[in-house]
């Protein structure tokens, strides 16, 4: 009799608990997030935070969608298909200056992974040698820094817009190509060209160490969901920290995401990318804390954007752009 009472109490307790969880679930804020490219280790922190339930823990119901090769994350944001997106700082500043009411609430990457790469066999060994050569740049934009670099170095290059592959470079249709250290550079290595057969120009080494990936939303969204976005940023950073400590698990998640999207995938390349991303999100020599944006970096990005901007928001302030 006594036993039965305990059993009944336990049952009631668990039913209440379950009801509680259920009610929490029902109250969770829905957020749609889109990273700025197809699934890859560049976004490992988001996959980990989702898989580990870090978003759930802070009461968020996050849905992760990816942009397609032809539709950017910013477009998803504009169309209201995503509440939060990630993109490059330069891209975001440029869009903001050009009138899109974007605000940033977390800066993930603290460094630039952008570089120019040439084959040694092309005979180019210094910046000056680039003069008059063909440079492949993504058609999707993100060309302000390379252009600033060419301008500052007084280099004239024939610009060839390319979509996303390295094949034109491999087949020597272009002499040089802007690549990300964490991605295309390693793709070139993975296409059978050895490191020692390449000459690299890291733009960070030439003074353009401008941070890249950050989290963005529309001003209106920030106004209405400030707390949730803050939680989203925290959970994301937690995801990145976890990814750094559990690389094999993270790679497994990344490769699964890529597989789901029918993307070519292998751990070798994703491991390289994850390692580089973890380096990029570490502030190292910059006096900035994890997830924050250094004001000088913002100002430098703004300056570069404004070099080529026609009109737009001339006096963009840091606190109007980055929500600490």
């Amino acid at each position, binding site marked *: 009799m006594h036993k039965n009472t305990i059993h009944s109490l336990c049952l009631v307790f668990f039913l209440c608990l379950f009801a509680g969880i259920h009610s929490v679930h029902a109250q969770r804020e829905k957020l749609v997030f889109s990273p700025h490219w197809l699934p890859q280790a560049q976004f490992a922190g988001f996959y980990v935070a989702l898989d580990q339930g870090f978003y759930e823990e802070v009461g968020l119901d996050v849905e992760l969608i990816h942009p397609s090769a*032809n*539709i950017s994350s910013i477009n998803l944001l504009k169309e209201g298909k995503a509440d939060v997106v990630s993109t490059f700082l330069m891209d975001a500043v440029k869009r903001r200056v050009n009138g899109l009411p974007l605000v940033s609430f977390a800066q993930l990457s603290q460094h630039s992974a952008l570089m120019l790469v040439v084959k040694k066999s092309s005979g180019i060994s210094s910046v000056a040698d680039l003069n008059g050569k063909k440079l492949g740049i993504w*058609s999707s934009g993100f060309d302000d820094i390379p252009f600033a670099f060419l301008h500052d170095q007084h280099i004239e290059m024939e610009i*060839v*817009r*390319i*979509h996303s*592959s*390295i*094949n*034109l470079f*491999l*087949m020597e*249709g272009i002499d040089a190509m802007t690549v990300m250290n964490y991605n295309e550079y390693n793709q070139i*290595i*993975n*296409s*059978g060209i*050895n490191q020692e057969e390449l000459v690299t120009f890291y733009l960070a080494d030439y003074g353009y160490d401008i941070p890249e990936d950050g989290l963005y939303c529309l001003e209106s969204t920030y106004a209405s969901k400030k707390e949730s976005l803050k939680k989203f940023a925290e959970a994301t950073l937690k995801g990145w920290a976890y990814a750094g400590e559990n690389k094999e698990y993270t790679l497994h998640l990344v490769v699964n995401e890529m597989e789901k999207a*029918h993307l*070519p*995938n*292998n*751990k*070798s*390349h994703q491991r390289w990318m994850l390692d580089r991303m973890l380096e990029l999100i570490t502030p190292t020599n910059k006096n900035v804390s994890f997830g924050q944006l250094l004001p000088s970096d913002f100002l430098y990005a703004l300056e570069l954007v404004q070099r080529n901007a026609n009109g737009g928001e001339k006096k963009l302030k840091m606190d109007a752009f980055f929500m600490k």
Partner: protein
Amino acid sequence: MRTNRLSFKIIIRILTFTILLGASIFSIYYYYSRTEIEKSARENAVFLAENTIKKIEEVIRPAEMIPNNLSWMLESGSIPKDSILPFLAKLVRNNPIIYASAIAFEPGVFDSDVDAYAPYAYRKGDGIETIDLWSPDYNYFIMDWYQIPAMLKTSYWSEPYYDEGGADALLSTYSMPFYVDKQGERVFGGIITIDISLEWLTEIVRSVRIFETGYAFLISRAGVYVTHPEVNLIKNHTIFTRADELNEPELRTIGRDMIRGEQALTSIDLEHLGYVWIYHTQLPSTRWSLGVVYPHKEMFAGLHKLTLTIILLTIFGLALLLFLTIRIINHQISPLAKFASSARSIASGDFKTELPHVGNSLEMQDLYNSFDYMKKELAQYIAHLQETTSAKEKIESELRIAKEIQMGMIPHIFPPFPDLPEIDLYATLLSAKEVGGDLYDFFLLDDSRICFAIGDVSGKGIPASLFMAVTRTLLRSTADKDKSTAEIVTSINKTLSLNNESNMFVTFFLGILDIQNGVLKYCNAGHNPPILIRNKTDVRFFNITKAIPVGLFEMYEYTEESILIDPTDQIFLYTDGLSEAEDVDHNLFGDEYLLEVIRQNASASPRSMIEAATKAVADHVKGHTQSDDLTMMSINYYGKRNL
């Protein structure tokens, strides 16, 4: 095992030789087989790869001809602008190999006011759909399939890609530039493409099977796996990411050679496959590279299996050989053991022992005959020996009696004259054979004179002993107190020389000592000179003339000599059995050594002196058989003592 030693030795030798011979032959066989297999595997690898490439090219080449023809048609303007879409649709429908086809125009080429136009026909279900590829979201000018051939002005096979939602298959696009006439000038007009599914290609490459786990694979110009038995690798991995994941830097080197279009046969030790050969060569059309993987272990698996079989058969064969050899050898040599047993039986005197049955081998028959002959000869010999032995025993018995008689003739009671204190005399005769030819004798002629003699008959044995007996008898019968020593010897000589058909003779020394005054008269007939020991210190030979022995010349007249012996002087007489005693190396005892021995024992009594001389001889010959009679006599003269 002792009894098996011969067979054991034969078997060991046969087995060793067989094993060495077999091992040599097998090593040569193995080496050549291996070389041949390697050679044929190389040839096979090349053949397989070339054959596969031929099969692929047989599909690709006609496919490539379609855009080629199309470009010619566009350049010649034989397709009306409004018929391009239906034409493409028909082209796709009529060519099952093609999944889709497009003609992408450069700005202003299709129509002067059209910046971009790319009619595209593709399969959808059982039908063909047509669309314009261009859209603000799809800028075909920067797509690889357009941009690369447009910039490089050459045809281009794209990297393989997975066509999601359309073909749902791995595709590759073949693009080739076409040209148009614009105001009399041939200008670049755009790109013609065909998309082909790579399923058939995968099938062709997959059909290459090499042994158990060998396979063929295809990689693109960027090293991406187009086909591979591990489906997961296709399009996901390049050979370089694979090399990185497997941590096999050598695979990366091979991959680099492959994408450079090199043709080579290399070997690599891969952790997951073991040691493999990779032959790679390029597909001329797509410039992709085909690799054929030959697992080294499996390449020789047949040989190793055969080797194992041969080794097992060899072991079995050797065991059989061993068994049969033991059987045969034991069978062949078993009569030897029986022969041995028979030989022992025969040796023990059983000449009726049956010899073993020996089979039909010539050698054994020979041995049997020899044994049989030996048995009969032995039986005969033993019978003869028994006769001889009984005869010999009889003779020996008679000789023993003769010896006893002979020894009985010579005095052997010492001291011989206990009543005569003036002298001490001792003598011994040791025969070389049962009966000897030496003699000695002594007797009193009267109260004061003692007659003594020593002689050595030529030859030995019975004749010598008979001659000795005669000589001694003659001495006793001839000697009397009135005769001189020379007369006695002359008389004996005469008697012995008469009718001496056997030409025997005797060396003879006869002396008569007057114990009253010490005068020694003597006659020497060819005998060794006695030794005179004066005053127990001075030792020397008698200085005498050596006359001829007795028994040779009937008419010979012997002469007498005389010497005065002082009291304490001693005489030592001997036969040549002493002075000519030989050791093993035929070294003589010798006169000098004799004198030395006597000198050392100069103060000894006659008996002690003779015993010392006997010992010295024994020491000298060291067990060498005594070849001659050994006779010694010594007389110590004390003179007339005041008793």
